[in-house]
Protein backbone atom coordinates (compact mmCIF):
# COMPACT_ATOMS: atom_id res chain seq x y z
CA UNK A 1 0.00 0.00 0.00
CA UNK A 2 2.85 2.38 0.79
CA UNK A 3 5.13 2.64 -2.23
CA UNK A 4 8.65 3.61 -1.20
CA UNK A 5 10.42 3.33 -4.53
CA UNK A 6 9.24 3.82 -8.10
CA UNK A 7 10.62 0.36 -8.95
CA UNK A 8 7.84 -1.22 -6.90
CA UNK A 9 5.41 -2.74 -9.34
CA UNK A 10 1.77 -1.87 -8.69
CA UNK A 11 0.05 -4.94 -7.33
CA UNK A 12 -3.66 -5.47 -7.02
CA UNK A 13 -5.58 -2.32 -7.67
CA UNK A 14 -9.25 -1.55 -7.63
CA UNK A 15 -9.11 -0.20 -11.15
CA UNK A 16 -6.80 -1.26 -13.98
CA UNK A 17 -7.86 1.77 -16.00
CA UNK A 18 -10.01 4.84 -15.48
CA UNK A 19 -13.70 4.14 -16.15
CA UNK A 20 -13.76 5.62 -19.64
CA UNK A 21 -14.64 3.90 -22.91
CA UNK A 22 -11.76 2.00 -24.51
CA UNK A 23 -11.21 4.47 -27.35
CA UNK A 24 -12.42 7.53 -25.43
CA UNK A 25 -11.51 10.80 -27.07
CA UNK A 26 -9.22 9.19 -29.62
CA UNK A 27 -9.58 10.48 -33.15
CA UNK A 28 -10.60 7.99 -35.83
CA UNK A 29 -7.04 7.39 -36.94
CA UNK A 30 -5.95 6.55 -33.40
CA UNK A 31 -8.65 4.06 -32.40
CA UNK A 32 -7.28 0.61 -31.66
CA UNK A 33 -8.74 -2.45 -33.38
CA UNK A 34 -8.25 -6.07 -32.49
CA UNK A 35 -5.26 -7.54 -34.27
CA UNK A 36 -3.72 -10.94 -34.97
CA UNK A 37 -3.02 -13.66 -32.47
CA UNK A 38 0.32 -15.44 -32.65
CA UNK A 39 0.27 -18.71 -30.65
CA UNK A 40 3.22 -20.09 -28.75
CA UNK A 41 5.58 -22.42 -30.62
CA UNK A 42 4.82 -26.13 -30.27
CA UNK A 43 6.35 -27.69 -27.19
CA UNK A 44 6.60 -24.48 -25.22
CA UNK A 45 5.89 -25.23 -21.60
CA UNK A 46 6.03 -21.88 -19.77
CA UNK A 47 4.35 -19.15 -21.76
CA UNK A 48 3.24 -15.58 -21.18
CA UNK A 49 0.56 -13.78 -23.17
CA UNK A 50 1.48 -10.25 -24.27
CA UNK A 51 -0.95 -7.88 -25.98
CA UNK A 52 1.13 -5.45 -27.97
CA UNK A 53 0.10 -2.21 -29.73
CA UNK A 54 0.92 -2.35 -33.42
CA UNK A 55 0.81 0.27 -36.14
CA UNK A 56 2.26 0.05 -39.60
CA UNK A 57 2.20 3.46 -41.33
CA UNK A 58 2.50 1.82 -44.76
CA UNK A 59 -0.26 -0.73 -44.36
CA UNK A 60 -2.60 0.13 -41.50
CA UNK A 61 -5.32 2.72 -41.35
CA UNK A 62 -5.59 2.44 -37.56
CA UNK A 63 -3.52 0.85 -34.81
CA UNK A 64 -4.34 -2.64 -33.56
CA UNK A 65 -3.60 -4.86 -30.59
CA UNK A 66 -1.77 -8.11 -31.48
CA UNK A 67 -1.60 -11.01 -29.03
CA UNK A 68 1.66 -12.94 -28.72
CA UNK A 69 2.41 -16.01 -26.63
CA UNK A 70 6.04 -15.92 -25.56
CA UNK A 71 8.04 -19.03 -24.66
CA UNK A 72 9.57 -17.98 -21.34
CA UNK A 73 12.16 -20.80 -21.43
CA UNK A 74 13.54 -19.43 -24.67
CA UNK A 75 14.02 -15.78 -23.80
CA UNK A 76 15.59 -13.63 -21.09
CA UNK A 77 13.74 -12.38 -18.03
CA UNK A 78 13.03 -8.79 -19.05
CA UNK A 79 10.22 -7.42 -21.22
CA UNK A 80 12.80 -6.22 -23.75
CA UNK A 81 14.04 -9.82 -24.02
CA UNK A 82 10.48 -10.91 -24.81
CA UNK A 83 10.15 -8.22 -27.50
CA UNK A 84 13.46 -9.27 -29.07
CA UNK A 85 12.35 -12.93 -28.93
CA UNK A 86 9.12 -12.03 -30.74
CA UNK A 87 11.00 -10.06 -33.36
CA UNK A 88 13.50 -12.87 -33.78
CA UNK A 89 11.23 -15.91 -33.74
CA UNK A 90 7.66 -14.82 -34.50
CA UNK A 91 7.14 -11.45 -36.24
CA UNK A 92 10.18 -9.62 -37.51
CA UNK A 93 8.16 -6.49 -38.27
CA UNK A 94 7.71 -5.71 -34.55
CA UNK A 95 9.46 -2.35 -34.15
CA UNK A 96 10.80 -0.75 -30.97
CA UNK A 97 13.75 1.34 -29.85
CA UNK A 98 16.50 -0.24 -27.75
CA UNK A 99 20.20 0.16 -27.08
CA UNK A 100 21.96 -0.44 -23.77
CA UNK A 101 19.61 -3.12 -22.34
CA UNK A 102 20.64 -2.05 -18.85
CA UNK A 103 18.44 0.94 -18.02
CA UNK A 104 20.81 3.82 -18.80
CA UNK A 105 20.01 4.99 -22.31
CA UNK A 106 16.24 5.54 -22.12
CA UNK A 107 15.49 4.14 -25.59
CA UNK A 108 13.06 1.36 -24.63
CA UNK A 109 10.65 3.47 -22.57
CA UNK A 110 7.10 2.22 -23.04
CA UNK A 111 3.83 1.62 -21.20
CA UNK A 112 3.57 -1.86 -19.68
CA UNK A 113 0.43 -2.91 -17.81
CA UNK A 114 -0.62 0.71 -17.63
CA UNK A 115 2.54 2.33 -16.30
CA UNK A 116 5.53 3.82 -18.09
CA UNK A 117 8.91 2.19 -17.48
CA UNK A 118 11.96 0.89 -19.36
CA UNK A 119 11.37 -2.48 -21.02
CA UNK A 120 14.90 -3.62 -20.23
CA UNK A 121 14.48 -3.19 -16.48
CA UNK A 122 10.91 -4.49 -16.14
CA UNK A 123 10.73 -8.26 -15.41
CA UNK A 124 8.23 -10.28 -17.41
CA UNK A 125 7.19 -11.92 -14.15
CA UNK A 126 6.06 -8.51 -12.84
CA UNK A 127 3.44 -8.25 -15.57
CA UNK A 128 -0.12 -9.49 -15.33
CA UNK A 129 -1.77 -12.04 -17.60
CA UNK A 130 -2.43 -11.05 -20.26
CA UNK A 131 0.14 -8.29 -20.13
CA UNK A 132 -0.50 -5.15 -22.16
CA UNK A 133 2.31 -3.31 -23.89
CA UNK A 134 1.59 0.09 -25.33
CA UNK A 135 3.94 2.82 -26.51
CA UNK A 136 4.53 5.80 -24.21
CA UNK A 137 1.16 7.42 -23.54
CA UNK A 138 -0.07 10.40 -25.51
CA UNK A 139 2.63 10.36 -28.18
CA UNK A 140 2.37 10.48 -31.97
CA UNK A 141 3.37 7.00 -33.09
CA UNK A 142 5.80 6.49 -35.96
CA UNK A 143 5.48 2.69 -35.97
CA UNK A 144 4.50 0.02 -33.42
CA UNK A 145 6.13 1.00 -30.12
CA UNK A 146 8.22 3.89 -31.51
CA UNK A 147 6.92 7.34 -30.44
CA UNK A 148 7.73 10.63 -32.14
CA UNK A 149 9.71 12.51 -29.52
CA UNK A 150 10.24 15.63 -31.63
CA UNK A 151 7.97 17.89 -29.59
CA UNK A 152 9.19 16.81 -26.14
CA UNK A 153 12.79 17.21 -27.27
CA UNK A 154 11.91 20.66 -28.61
CA UNK A 155 10.53 21.53 -25.17
CA UNK A 156 13.82 20.28 -23.69
CA UNK A 157 15.80 22.41 -26.14
CA UNK A 158 13.69 25.41 -25.18
CA UNK A 159 14.88 25.39 -21.57
CA UNK A 160 18.46 25.79 -22.87
CA UNK A 161 20.11 22.80 -21.20
CA UNK A 162 23.68 24.14 -21.24
CA UNK A 163 25.85 26.28 -19.03
CA UNK A 164 25.24 29.99 -19.60
CA UNK A 165 27.70 32.39 -18.08
CA UNK A 166 28.58 36.03 -18.50
CA UNK A 167 31.89 36.06 -16.64
CA UNK A 168 34.81 35.25 -18.92
CA UNK A 169 35.86 31.60 -19.15
CA UNK A 170 38.38 30.91 -16.37
CA UNK A 171 41.84 29.59 -17.22
CA UNK A 172 41.15 26.34 -15.47
CA UNK A 173 37.89 24.75 -14.32
CA UNK A 174 34.85 26.65 -13.05
CA UNK A 175 35.08 25.87 -9.37
CA UNK A 176 32.27 24.33 -7.40
CA UNK A 177 32.23 23.15 -3.79
CA UNK A 178 31.17 19.65 -2.78
CA UNK A 179 27.94 21.01 -1.32
CA UNK A 180 27.21 22.94 -4.52
CA UNK A 181 27.82 19.83 -6.61
CA UNK A 182 25.44 17.89 -4.37
CA UNK A 183 22.67 20.26 -5.42
CA UNK A 184 22.73 18.52 -8.80
CA UNK A 185 22.25 15.02 -7.36
CA UNK A 186 18.88 13.63 -8.31
CA UNK A 187 18.64 15.86 -11.38
CA UNK A 188 21.70 15.28 -13.57
CA UNK A 189 21.00 11.52 -13.76
CA UNK A 190 17.96 11.97 -16.02
CA UNK A 191 18.25 9.83 -19.15
CA UNK A 192 15.51 11.69 -21.05
CA UNK A 193 13.36 8.60 -21.48
CA UNK A 194 10.21 10.78 -21.13
CA UNK A 195 8.33 8.21 -19.03
CA UNK A 196 7.40 11.07 -16.69
CA UNK A 197 6.18 13.54 -19.30
CA UNK A 198 4.23 10.82 -21.06
CA UNK A 199 2.54 9.87 -17.78
CA UNK A 200 1.51 13.38 -16.80
CA UNK A 201 -2.23 14.07 -17.26
CA UNK A 202 -1.55 17.80 -17.45
CA UNK A 203 0.82 17.17 -20.36
CA UNK A 204 -1.87 14.99 -21.97
CA UNK A 205 -4.35 17.88 -21.97
CA UNK A 206 -1.90 20.79 -22.49
CA UNK A 207 1.27 19.22 -23.85
CA UNK A 208 1.58 21.81 -26.59
CA UNK A 209 2.26 24.55 -24.03
CA UNK A 210 3.03 22.82 -20.71
CA UNK A 211 6.70 21.82 -20.63
CA UNK A 212 6.17 18.60 -18.68
CA UNK A 213 8.22 17.04 -15.89
CA UNK A 214 11.26 15.99 -17.96
CA UNK A 215 11.99 19.46 -19.36
CA UNK A 216 11.15 21.08 -16.01
CA UNK A 217 13.44 18.72 -14.10
CA UNK A 218 16.28 19.57 -16.46
CA UNK A 219 15.41 23.26 -16.15
CA UNK A 220 15.92 22.90 -12.40
CA UNK A 221 19.21 21.04 -13.01
CA UNK A 222 20.54 24.19 -14.67
CA UNK A 223 18.93 26.59 -12.19
CA UNK A 224 20.51 24.67 -9.32
CA UNK A 225 23.96 24.66 -10.93
CA UNK A 226 26.12 27.18 -9.07
CA UNK A 227 28.26 27.73 -12.18
CA UNK A 228 25.30 28.92 -14.25
CA UNK A 229 24.73 32.70 -14.39
CA UNK A 230 21.49 32.92 -16.37
CA UNK A 231 19.13 32.24 -13.45
CA UNK A 232 17.10 35.38 -14.07
CA UNK A 233 16.43 34.64 -17.74
CA UNK A 234 15.75 30.97 -16.99
CA UNK A 235 13.13 31.82 -14.37
CA UNK A 236 11.62 34.46 -16.67
CA UNK A 237 11.25 31.85 -19.38
CA UNK A 238 9.62 29.39 -16.97
CA UNK A 239 7.24 31.76 -15.21
CA UNK A 240 4.20 31.26 -17.41
CA UNK A 241 0.67 30.03 -16.58
CA UNK A 242 1.14 27.16 -19.01
CA UNK A 243 4.85 26.37 -19.25
CA UNK A 244 5.25 25.84 -15.51
CA UNK A 245 1.95 26.41 -13.77
CA UNK A 246 -0.02 23.67 -15.51
CA UNK A 247 1.73 21.47 -12.95
CA UNK A 248 -0.87 20.71 -10.28
CA UNK A 249 1.38 18.33 -8.33
CA UNK A 250 -0.36 15.24 -9.64
CA UNK A 251 2.95 13.36 -9.06
CA UNK A 252 2.50 10.58 -11.63
CA UNK A 253 5.97 11.65 -12.74
CA UNK A 254 7.75 10.79 -9.49
CA UNK A 255 5.77 7.55 -9.28
CA UNK A 256 6.87 6.40 -12.73
CA UNK A 257 10.51 7.52 -13.07
CA UNK A 258 12.56 4.41 -13.90
CA UNK A 259 15.69 6.09 -12.49
CA UNK A 260 14.01 6.96 -9.18
CA UNK A 261 14.26 10.71 -9.79
CA UNK A 262 11.80 13.28 -8.48
CA UNK A 263 10.49 15.74 -11.08
CA UNK A 264 7.68 16.81 -8.76
CA UNK A 265 10.22 18.02 -6.24
CA UNK A 266 12.23 19.88 -8.87
CA UNK A 267 9.10 21.69 -10.05
CA UNK A 268 8.24 22.62 -6.46
CA UNK A 269 11.72 24.12 -6.09
CA UNK A 270 11.16 26.17 -9.24
CA UNK A 271 7.85 27.50 -7.91
CA UNK A 272 9.56 28.39 -4.64
CA UNK A 273 12.35 30.20 -6.47
CA UNK A 274 9.85 32.23 -8.49
CA UNK A 275 8.03 33.16 -5.31
CA UNK A 276 11.27 33.98 -3.50
CA UNK A 277 12.45 36.45 -6.11
CA UNK A 278 9.38 38.60 -5.71
CA UNK A 279 8.85 38.44 -1.94
Amino acid at each position, binding site marked *: *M*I*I*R*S*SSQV*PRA*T*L*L*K*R*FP*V*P*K*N*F*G*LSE*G*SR*IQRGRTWPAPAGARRTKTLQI*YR*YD*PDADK*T*PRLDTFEVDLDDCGPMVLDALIWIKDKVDSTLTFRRSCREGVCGSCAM*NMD*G*TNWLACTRSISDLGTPA*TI*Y*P*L*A*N*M*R*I*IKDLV*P*DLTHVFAQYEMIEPWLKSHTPTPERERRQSVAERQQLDGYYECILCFCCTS*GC*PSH*WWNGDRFLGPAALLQAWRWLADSRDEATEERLDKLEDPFRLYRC*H*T*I*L*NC*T*RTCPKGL*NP*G*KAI*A*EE*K*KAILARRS
Partner: protein
Amino acid sequence: MSRSRPLSPNIQIYRPQLTSVLSIANRITGVVLGLGGFGLVAWLVAAALGPQPYAAVQSAFISWPGQVLLVGFTFAFFLHLCGGIRHLVWDSGRGFELGSIYASGWAVVAASVVLTAATWVASAVLGG
Protein backbone atom coordinates in the same frame (compact mmCIF):
# COMPACT_ATOMS: atom_id res chain seq x y z
CA MET B 1 0.93 9.88 -48.15
CA SER B 2 -0.22 12.60 -45.81
CA ARG B 3 -2.00 10.67 -43.09
CA SER B 4 -1.20 12.06 -39.66
CA ARG B 5 0.31 9.77 -37.09
CA PRO B 6 -2.00 8.12 -34.54
CA LEU B 7 -1.89 9.24 -30.93
CA SER B 8 -1.06 6.52 -28.41
CA PRO B 9 -3.76 6.06 -25.76
CA ASN B 10 -3.35 7.96 -22.51
CA ILE B 11 -6.20 7.98 -19.99
CA GLN B 12 -7.72 5.02 -21.81
CA ILE B 13 -4.92 2.69 -20.68
CA TYR B 14 -2.85 4.44 -17.99
CA ARG B 15 -3.13 2.75 -14.63
CA PRO B 16 -4.97 4.74 -11.94
CA GLN B 17 -2.54 5.26 -9.07
CA LEU B 18 -2.89 6.94 -5.70
CA THR B 19 -1.12 9.98 -7.16
CA SER B 20 -3.51 10.60 -10.05
CA VAL B 21 -6.66 9.37 -8.28
CA LEU B 22 -6.27 11.65 -5.26
CA SER B 23 -5.37 14.53 -7.55
CA ILE B 24 -8.51 14.22 -9.66
CA ALA B 25 -10.53 13.67 -6.48
CA ASN B 26 -9.18 16.96 -5.14
CA ARG B 27 -10.30 18.69 -8.35
CA ILE B 28 -13.75 17.05 -8.41
CA THR B 29 -14.37 17.85 -4.73
CA GLY B 30 -13.19 21.40 -5.40
CA VAL B 31 -15.77 21.88 -8.13
CA VAL B 32 -18.46 20.29 -5.91
CA LEU B 33 -17.53 22.65 -3.08
CA GLY B 34 -17.73 25.57 -5.49
CA LEU B 35 -21.33 24.59 -6.19
CA GLY B 36 -21.78 24.27 -2.44
CA GLY B 37 -20.69 27.85 -2.09
CA PHE B 38 -23.60 28.86 -4.28
CA GLY B 39 -25.80 26.74 -2.02
CA LEU B 40 -24.46 28.59 1.02
CA VAL B 41 -25.36 31.94 -0.51
CA ALA B 42 -28.81 30.61 -1.43
CA TRP B 43 -29.26 29.72 2.24
CA LEU B 44 -28.14 33.19 3.38
CA VAL B 45 -30.36 34.94 0.87
CA ALA B 46 -33.31 32.81 1.94
CA ALA B 47 -32.67 33.77 5.56
CA ALA B 48 -32.42 37.43 4.57
CA LEU B 49 -35.76 37.23 2.79
CA GLY B 50 -37.62 36.00 5.86
CA PRO B 51 -38.80 32.99 7.86
CA GLN B 52 -40.83 31.33 5.06
CA PRO B 53 -38.07 31.19 2.40
CA TYR B 54 -35.64 30.10 5.14
CA ALA B 55 -37.99 27.32 6.26
CA ALA B 56 -38.36 26.17 2.65
CA VAL B 57 -34.57 25.87 2.24
CA GLN B 58 -34.26 24.18 5.63
CA SER B 59 -36.86 21.57 4.75
CA ALA B 60 -34.94 20.77 1.58
CA PHE B 61 -31.81 20.20 3.70
CA ILE B 62 -33.71 18.09 6.24
CA SER B 63 -35.37 15.86 3.61
CA TRP B 64 -33.62 12.55 3.19
CA PRO B 65 -32.24 13.26 -0.30
CA GLY B 66 -30.96 16.53 1.14
CA GLN B 67 -29.30 14.67 4.01
CA VAL B 68 -27.66 12.20 1.62
CA LEU B 69 -26.33 15.12 -0.41
CA LEU B 70 -25.07 16.81 2.75
CA VAL B 71 -23.20 13.68 3.87
CA GLY B 72 -21.59 13.45 0.44
CA PHE B 73 -20.87 17.13 0.56
CA THR B 74 -19.25 16.86 4.00
CA PHE B 75 -17.00 14.07 2.72
CA ALA B 76 -16.09 16.18 -0.31
CA PHE B 77 -15.32 19.08 2.01
CA PHE B 78 -12.96 17.09 4.25
CA LEU B 79 -11.29 15.37 1.30
CA HIS B 80 -10.58 18.74 -0.31
CA LEU B 81 -9.50 20.26 3.02
CA CYS B 82 -7.05 17.47 3.88
CA GLY B 83 -5.91 17.21 0.25
CA GLY B 84 -5.44 20.97 0.20
CA ILE B 85 -3.28 20.89 3.32
CA ARG B 86 -1.24 18.10 1.69
CA HIS B 87 -0.77 20.43 -1.31
CA LEU B 88 0.31 23.30 0.93
CA VAL B 89 2.96 21.05 2.51
CA TRP B 90 4.21 20.17 -1.00
CA ASP B 91 4.32 23.84 -1.91
CA SER B 92 6.75 24.37 0.98
CA GLY B 93 9.01 21.82 -0.74
CA ARG B 94 8.48 18.99 1.77
CA GLY B 95 6.96 15.53 1.51
CA PHE B 96 8.10 14.57 -1.99
CA GLU B 97 9.74 11.23 -1.24
CA LEU B 98 7.54 8.45 -2.63
CA GLY B 99 7.03 6.92 0.81
CA SER B 100 5.78 10.27 2.12
CA ILE B 101 3.58 10.82 -0.92
CA TYR B 102 1.84 7.51 -0.36
CA ALA B 103 1.66 7.77 3.42
CA SER B 104 0.21 11.29 3.30
CA GLY B 105 -2.19 10.21 0.57
CA TRP B 106 -3.66 7.37 2.60
CA ALA B 107 -3.72 9.66 5.66
CA VAL B 108 -5.86 12.13 3.69
CA VAL B 109 -8.35 9.41 2.77
CA ALA B 110 -8.52 8.06 6.32
CA ALA B 111 -8.81 11.51 7.90
CA SER B 112 -11.61 12.48 5.52
CA VAL B 113 -13.64 9.39 6.42
CA VAL B 114 -13.06 9.87 10.15
CA LEU B 115 -13.85 13.59 10.10
CA THR B 116 -17.01 13.06 8.05
CA ALA B 117 -18.21 10.41 10.47
CA ALA B 118 -17.34 12.60 13.47
CA THR B 119 -19.22 15.55 12.02
CA TRP B 120 -22.36 13.56 11.42
CA VAL B 121 -22.23 11.80 14.79
CA ALA B 122 -21.81 15.17 16.48
CA SER B 123 -24.70 16.68 14.57
CA ALA B 124 -26.89 13.67 15.36
CA VAL B 125 -26.04 13.91 19.04
CA LEU B 126 -26.62 17.66 19.19
CA GLY B 127 -29.55 17.84 16.85
CA GLY B 128 -31.51 14.71 17.49
